[in-house]
């Protein structure tokens, strides 16, 4: 996922690949200090999210040991959600915050050991594939009800997917829409026209796709494909007040200020293998700066004892204080993220491989990491894939591990070989305090290696428009990507396939390498997950050999919470705290 728009700093991808929760909490003596043993990205196990069985898809969700019902859980967050219409939801935080009120055909189930499985949510299982992945069927459970007590009908399920073609749906994922057969000219269901490639037979919905997609059941787990009732679809206005079929419904909302969920009495836990729904109420409060929220978590007084955060992580100013205090550290959930931040190199302007390699060798990784807040919040990256994404292969083609501060001598030698000493590089970065500091460090390092650097600050709101313009005039720019579901396809196809070069597309490096394109196409068709993983790992290396990007860092996220909140675990499906697993202690 591109880190654009309002939430670019805090929104990571929509789906994680890992269920390995690296809790930094517990285990220390009461009070006193704790070692700042920040988790290592490189030491993180890659754990797949397997597809569960029909039994796994049957409710109720596994009980959380010691959990109690009742109470209110609060949040201290900075931002409200941009959207509540599922069709418009893309960022992971919005996906996570709507888990209690929205259900899709599939979803992610967290068991009592923290492991995650893809299961049927509204569907009885995680789907049935035919024709090698070109046809997918899901049978919808009986007994699902909307918040007004009406049944979830198959018309609703069909409508959910057909409305994604309406002109007012502009921001959600577009995978399913582009894969459904014969949808090129379809404009949505509001003129009573149906899409032929979606078929309904009894309680079963079948999707006919224009390409084989072995991972279609993971795609429909995205919040963007959560169910919408046909009868209550208010089109554009649905974004303000979605209708619930989950364990909670919206009681009140003041955009930018607060959002309150109360119980949906029509939700039947027997239909839901994912959500426990212990608290009676969720009260999300917005407008708390990261630092202010962290200070309140540290103070741990009043209702803040029952508070957590979806958006706000521990502020960089307090990270050392929090992670070195045993008591505070107990109330932190630490998780390696699926995102990799990197700097694409415009391959249409920097055409010489040796020059691109020289940039990689000269890169001041260590200085940049320090500017970002150190090893507690990031680890230097040498690959495009995150270590928690299935298929990740560890390699370091440009000696970053040995020389994290950069190797200007090696870079200079490469430039000399290429006859490009003094090569001009135009670097674009977003206007922010940190970016300015980073730009200076990058400029110094690259100039030491023999480049001539021109730094250009770009307005935040137009940054991604500008770097997404194929005639952008920049050689190097900051970006980042997190997979939308746990496999290599959603890492490499959107960002590194030649098909995705164009204004507004995500192949920012404009890499159009026949070998890479063929390899991505071939890997997409591999049905065996283990084989597919190997293929994606190899593609990572294949791309890095062409040096169209400088991997910058993998993110480590730290969420703090109040002392009276129980079972704070990571939702690998939504890369956030799992709201439906929390409980308020008595």
């Amino acid at each position, binding site marked *: 996922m591109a880190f*654009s728009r309002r939430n670019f700093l805090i929104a990571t991808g929509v789906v994680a690949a890992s269920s390995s929760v690296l809790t930094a909490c517990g285990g220390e003596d009461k009070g006193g200090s704790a070692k700042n043993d920040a988790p290592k990205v490189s030491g993180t196990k890659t754990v797949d999210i397997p597809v569960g069985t029909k039994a796994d898809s049957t409710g109720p969700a596994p009980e959380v040991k010691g959990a109690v019902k009742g109470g209110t859980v609060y949040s201290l967050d900075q931002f409200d959600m941009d959207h509540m219409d599922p069709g418009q939801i893309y960022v992971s935080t919005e996906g996570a915050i709507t888990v209690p009120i929205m259900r899709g055909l599939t979803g992610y189930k967290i068991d009592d050991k923290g492991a995650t499985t893809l299961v049927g949510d509204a569907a009885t299982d995680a789907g049935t594939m035919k024709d090698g992945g070109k046809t997918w069927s899901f049978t919808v459970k009986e007994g699902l009800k909307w918040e007004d007590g009406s049944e979830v009908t198959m018309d609703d399920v069909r409508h959910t997917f057909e409305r994604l073609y309406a002109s007012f749906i502009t921001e959600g994922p*577009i995978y399913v829409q582009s894969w459904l057969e014969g949808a090129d000219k379809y404009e949505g269901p509001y003129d009573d026209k149906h899409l032929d490639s979606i078929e309904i037979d009894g309680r079963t919905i079948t999707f006919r796709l224009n390409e084989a997609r072995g991972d279609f059941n993971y795609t429909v787990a995205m919040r963007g494909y959560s169910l919408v009732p046909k009868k209550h679809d208010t089109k554009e206005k649905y*974004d303000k007040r979605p209708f619930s079929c989950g364990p909670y419904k919206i009681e009140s909302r003041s*955009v930018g200020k607060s959002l309150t969920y109360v119980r949906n009495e029509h939700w039947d836990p027997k239909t839901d293998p994912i959500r426990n729904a212990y608290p009676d109420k969720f009260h999300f409060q917005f407008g708390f700066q990261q630092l202010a929220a962290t200070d309140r978590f540290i103070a741990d*007084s009043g209702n803040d004892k029952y508070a957590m955060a979806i958006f706000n992580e521990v502020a960089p100013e307090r990270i050392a204080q929090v992670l070195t205090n045993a008591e505070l550290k107990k109330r932190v959930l630490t998780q390696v993220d699926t995102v990799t931040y990197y700097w694409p190199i415009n391959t249409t302007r920097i055409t010489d491989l040796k020059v691109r390699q020289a940039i990689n060798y000269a890169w001041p990784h260590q200085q940049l990491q320090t500017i970002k807040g150190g090893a507690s919040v990031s680890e230097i990256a040498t690959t495009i894939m995150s270590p928690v994404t299935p298929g990740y292969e560890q390699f370091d083609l440009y000696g970053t591990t040995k020389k994290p501060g950069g190797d200007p001598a090696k870079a200079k030698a490469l430039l000399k070989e290429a006859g490009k000493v003094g090569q001009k590089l135009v670097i674009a970065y977003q206007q922010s305090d940190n970016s300015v500091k980073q730009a200076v460090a990058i400029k110094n390092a690259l100039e030491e290696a023999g480049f001539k650097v021109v730094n250009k600050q770009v307005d935040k709101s137009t940054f991604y*428009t500008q770097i997404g313009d194929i005639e952008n005039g920049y050689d190097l720019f900051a970006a980042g990507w997190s997979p939308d579901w746990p496999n290599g396809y959603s890492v490499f196809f959107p960002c590194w396939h030649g098909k995705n070069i164009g204004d507004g597309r995500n192949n920012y490096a404009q890499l159009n390498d026949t070998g890479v394109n063929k390899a991505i196409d071939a890997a997409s068709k591999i049905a065996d997950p283990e084989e597919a993983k190997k293929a994606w790992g190899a593609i990572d290396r294949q791309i890095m050999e062409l040096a169209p990007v400088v991997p910058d860092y993998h993110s480590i996220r730290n969420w703090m919470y109040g002392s009276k909140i129980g079972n704070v675990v990571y939702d690998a499906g939504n890369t956030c705290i799992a709201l439906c697993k929390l409980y308020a202690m008595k």
Partner: protein
Amino acid sequence: MLRFLVRRVSGAMVILLIISAVTFWLFYAIPRDPAMMSCGKNCTPENLEQIRKNLGIDESILMQYWHWLVGVFAGRDYAGYGYCDAPCLGYSFANREPVFGTIMDRLPLTLSLAFGAAVVFLIIGVGAGMLAALKQGKFLDKFASSVSLLGSSLQIYFVGYIAMFFLVSELGVLSQPSYTPLTENPAAWMSGLLLPWLVLAIIFTANYTRMTRSQMVEQLSEDYVRTARAKGLSKRNVFFRFAWRGAMGPIVTLFGIDLGVLIGGAIITETTFSLQGIGRLAIQSVNQSDLPMLLGVTVLAAGAIVLFNIVVDAVYALIDPRIRLA
């Protein structure tokens, strides 16, 4: 009085019109594309165009301003987002809510903050200033002057954090700053805003103490005060009936400006205490390039200052009979 009010209100409307036009032009002329913020991850040129059309930003700046003005008085339809009732100050790019509705949602907090703090800093500030004037040259005068000098040199973001740390986190004598509507729970309203009121009062009190003291000292040395004393009026009567009234003019002016500014948005105070009022709305709008919201907040802030200037002028006449409204 009525003639005065009609004339001043008409003038104020013209001022607001000019401010809105200049602000509109400034905001819309800068090279930012709010449609991009709404276009999402897989933005296509078609989507972008549709969003621009929905937001009404595909027209010339002049037409956009005209439609905005019409919307203020007659309401306006935003394709794809719904109808915005009059007074329609625009449609927020970021919140996708009518600007006026959002401002009205945040205004009660800011009004509570402004008027609550005003009560505290007026009572303490004016009271301390009067005492200092009364005890000119004595310990109380020197103490009040020194404290006011210290107070005026402090900043909200400093005092606010220190006060929160000690009074809320360490000692627990005050609640975390929060806002509960007055009509819902007066006790919670007061306890949630007490800390911001006190901190704001520390900063503002200083000016009022110093202003009141200097004005009172000046007034007490005036001939008419001496004459009143010579005619046998009591010290108390002279102090409150003559000197105090004479000293109030500049204080009322200062108060009018301060209140207008506070209602226009106490950005730092609301940010320090994580309160969601007009000030936070303004800063969020800047961060999100939410130009309609920023325009709405600017017009509100300007309106508040203009309104309180009119009120100040009217109050002048009541306080000082020498001033006539013409």
